[in-house]
């Protein structure tokens, strides 16, 4: 059976898939949540949360740009 399945590649896909494929939506969710929370408080706390939210969205934009670069480089 081991000859038929490339366990190494599969394991890599699984680990990085969970990290990226589940991590990015989680980041986005964090961003949405802190943005939502920032509208309920005022002053410094709101700014901090807003910055946090946009940092989260920034990470996702970076990840998407990275994926684009990967596609353009012919890695598909």
């Amino acid at each position, binding site marked *: 059976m081991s*000859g*038929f*399945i*490339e366990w190494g*590649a*599969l394991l*890599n*896909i*699984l680990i*990085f*898939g*969970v990290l*990226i*494929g*589940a*991590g*990015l*939506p*989680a980041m*986005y*969710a*964090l961003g*949405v*949540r802190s*943005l*939502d929370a920032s509208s309920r408080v005022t002053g410094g706390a709101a700014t901090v949360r807003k910055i946090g939210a946009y940092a989260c969205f920034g990470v*996702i934009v970076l990840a*998407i740009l990275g*994926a*684009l670069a*990967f*596609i*353009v*480089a*012919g*890695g*598909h």
Partner: protein
Amino acid sequence: MALLVIVVVTALVFDFTNGFHDTGNAMAPSIATRALKPKQAVLLCAILNMVGAFLSLTVAATIAKGIVDAAVVTLLVVLAGLAGGIIWNLITWLLKMPSSSSHALVGGIVGAVLAAAGADGVIWSGLVSKVMLPALLAPAIAILVASIGTAIVTRITGSVAQKHNEKSFRWGQIGSASLMALAHGTNDAQKTMGIILLALIAGGAVAPDAGVPVWVVVSCALAMALGTYMGGWRVIRTLGKGLVRLDSRQGMSADMSSASVILLSSHFGYSLSTTHVATGSILGTGVGRKGATVQWSVARKMFVAWLVTVPAAAAVGGLCYGIGRVVSDQSSQTAGGLVVFAILAATSAFIYVLSRRQPVSANTVNDEWDPTSEGESILAESVTMHNPRLMRVPKPPRRRKKKPIHVPKKAKKRSKTQQAKKAAKKTSAAKSSGSKKKSTSKKSSGAKKKSSSKKTAGSKSKKKSKSR
């Protein structure tokens, strides 16, 4: 030369079917959650597919490499393989099943090679390890990733107002779906380019070490974009509505999981089918969210379709090759090619006609999957979407469809007798009081009372059947 032209045209047709069959992989969640209107979604997907086709020029000339013996592949084999792939794509589309277009193509070529060179022409271990097993593994991985993603996302955003969630996650969804569409364009358009290039080289039209001619790139990109824009509404409907009731958080998790698994799998050199990954991700969002239900009966049908794809496409491909081989003479295979192409055209037309019997369009793609719970779920949806318009009376075609299912036979009979009585009443009314229609209907002679009371009963039963 004529055979070469036929092969190129058929390859473009395959690209077209590939486009509309796989639109749903990227866009079904966005359409189902109403992040994008159906037409907008397919337009976006078509544009991105086209851009994707131009983005990368690494040609995937490796279709069926390591699966069949390259020495036995002739133009007629490629043509028969393409025909097998197209026909199987159309059949699964007719059955509203998402299935892998590349697997259909591989299956078709395997079948044609089997018919051409026998069992020795196929590398069986390659077929099992590169095609059959990944079909089982891809959805498993995607289900895992998407369910973890959904579980985390729903937990984090549990405290956020529903309205805010919906709005924000729609944007995330559009972004991740676009990435999917782009990846699909690069991947699949390149496969067709590879086939056309191989055919051109085999036919002697270009030098063996030539790159892809520009017209091939352009025509492949256009064929795929056109196919995508046609919208494989039947498949989109199954993916978006048939498996899991998606909200936009789940939609985004699904798209993100699909995009990352697909890009990672190609990075690690273990290519998984886009369709299988996308379907698995959608299933995973149902698994990962508390209280969500997954329609495993629909999913089971899909898994069966995936396992059947290669053998079925192989059967069609083999058959096409056999017919083509018998028809063509020793010196040239052009006649065989023409016959195969004619068979392909006839079958496609037949399947199209069949599909018209139960059409699915951009307008009906988001209709409720399960008509028995329709009223209830429309109410629920209109509440969650804050859109009372959803509760408006359904469109006429729906009603017409439902009638034969829900009207019991007795009611039909009654309505027939009622019609007869109506006719009788009309004639009697005409006899008794010639011109004054109003007065006759208000007057109450015994027979008329009976018929009118029956009439109300009949209309009541009709109303009941409608409201169900």
